[in-house]
């Protein structure tokens, strides 16, 4: 309990520091899966550890101890967790759960709205074209999802580039990329440390769709040109200033497409998997320690108070 309960925090810290940098260089599809797994496992480990730490504090409240029939003194003697740490954990845990609730509500609203708009789009073709000169293209998830592109975007692309754009957006829909985004959004609501991971995840999904388009069209330069031209055309269009912060990613995508496809590497994934396994094992270990602690305290409690009750 003393050390193992803190290991999920350490794993989270290591992964937030290293995973985003690594993931950008790896093959995007496995990288997206790895980032999703990492987010889920570390968010679970984080929550579990906080809950265990908070519990050791709560368990020392006399009323709680009376209810659970354990000895506060025994718990305090055996338990190496400071009350301050326990209280802080409880606060962080509560804040995380509240944020998770809010994010889940908002995410559900967004998904429902996207689905509704999806069914309201005219026609039943996969592609819905907007009669609008502003260059715009996005994938609208639904069942089935639709690819929404404005006339302005189609006009600024060449023949092959249009096909590349459609293939890219189709990859988003086929790969259910909005589910990945939902995972990252919710996990980083529970634990704000995971935000860089979510940010990188969004970039990796774009790379995934780019690589898919490159594989399907068999022409990496064509996809690079489609991305580049679309971005340059969109840059001329009016846009909300708040979005400017996400810059820098399009040139990275274009550069990656102009180079060779990313090599398949095993080592980073194996290392990440080991860290996640370590996270799970330590959490289980901490939980069983904590369980033993309570058993012990209950035994003490029974020794001191319930002997006469059993006899009488």
């Amino acid at each position, binding site marked *: 309990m003393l050390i193992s309960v803190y290991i999920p925090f350490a794993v989270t810290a290591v992964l937030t520091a290293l995973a985003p940098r690594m993931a950008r260089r790896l093959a995007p599809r496995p990288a997206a899966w790895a980032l999703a797994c990492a987010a889920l496992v570390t968010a679970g480990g984080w929550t579990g550890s906080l809950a265990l730490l908070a519990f050791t504090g709560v368990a020392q409240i006399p009323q709680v101890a009376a209810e659970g029939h354990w000895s506060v003194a025994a718990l305090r003697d055996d338990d190496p967790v400071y009350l301050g740490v326990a209280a802080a954990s409880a606060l962080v845990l509560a804040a995380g759960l509240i944020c998770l609730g809010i994010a889940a509500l*908002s*995410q559900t609203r*967004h998904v429902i*709205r*996207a689905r509704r*708009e999806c069914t*309201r*789009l*005219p026609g039943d*073709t*996969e*592609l819905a*074209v*907007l*009669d609008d000169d502003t260059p*715009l*293209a*996005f*994938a609208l*998830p639904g069942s089935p999802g639709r690819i929404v592109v404005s*006339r302005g*975007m*189609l006009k600024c*692309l060449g*023949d*092959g580039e*249009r*096909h590349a*754009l*459609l293939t*890219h957006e*189709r990859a988003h829909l086929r790969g259910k990329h*909005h589910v990945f*985004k*939902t995972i990252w959004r919710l996990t980083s609501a529970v634990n704000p440390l995971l935000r860089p991971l979510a940010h990188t995840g969004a970039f990796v*999904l*774009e790379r995934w769709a780019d690589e898919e388009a490159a594989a*399907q*069209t*068999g022409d990496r*330069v064509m996809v*690079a*040109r489609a*991305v*580049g031209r*679309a*971005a*340059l055309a*969109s*840059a001329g269009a009016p*846009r909300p200033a708040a*979005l400017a912060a*996400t*810059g820098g*990613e*399009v*040139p990275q995508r*274009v*550069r990656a497409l*102009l180079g060779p496809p990313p090599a398949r590497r095993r080592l980073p994934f194996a290392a990440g998997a080991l860290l996640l396994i370590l996270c799970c094992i330590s959490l289980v270990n901490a939980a069983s320690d904590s369980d033993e602690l309570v058993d012990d305290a209950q035994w003490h409690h029974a020794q001191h108070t319930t002997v006469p009750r059993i006899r009488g």
Partner: protein
Amino acid sequence: MSDPNGDETPGGSGRRARGELESDVLAALWAADRPLTAGQVRERLRGDLAYTTVLTILSRLYDKGVLLRHREGRGYAYTPASDEASHTAQRMRTLLDSGSDREAVLTRFVSELSEQDEELLHHLLSEHDPSDGDGP
């Protein structure tokens, strides 16, 4: 998803499903400034699609009400139909602009560029595309 009209693409990706071809045809028609005949649409699509395949897709899209057509020579020339689309465009834009977390669901093709990005991008593209033309 097997489609007798599906054609092999030169990239070796195998059969293209019917819906995907519809999207390509629709996109080509929207990108054009004037009505296109089946032959002209075929020229603008990647891969060696059979003429009859393009014709089939065009008439299917016409039946769905997505396209308008008029006689031209021996066949038809097609234009995209955009009846209530202006409404849709407005709705889609508000969908994209609603709240800072909309990106958690929607995936846009390109994110915004900074000025340095623009320069870098011009540079990258010109290196690989000296003629700045689209190969057919």
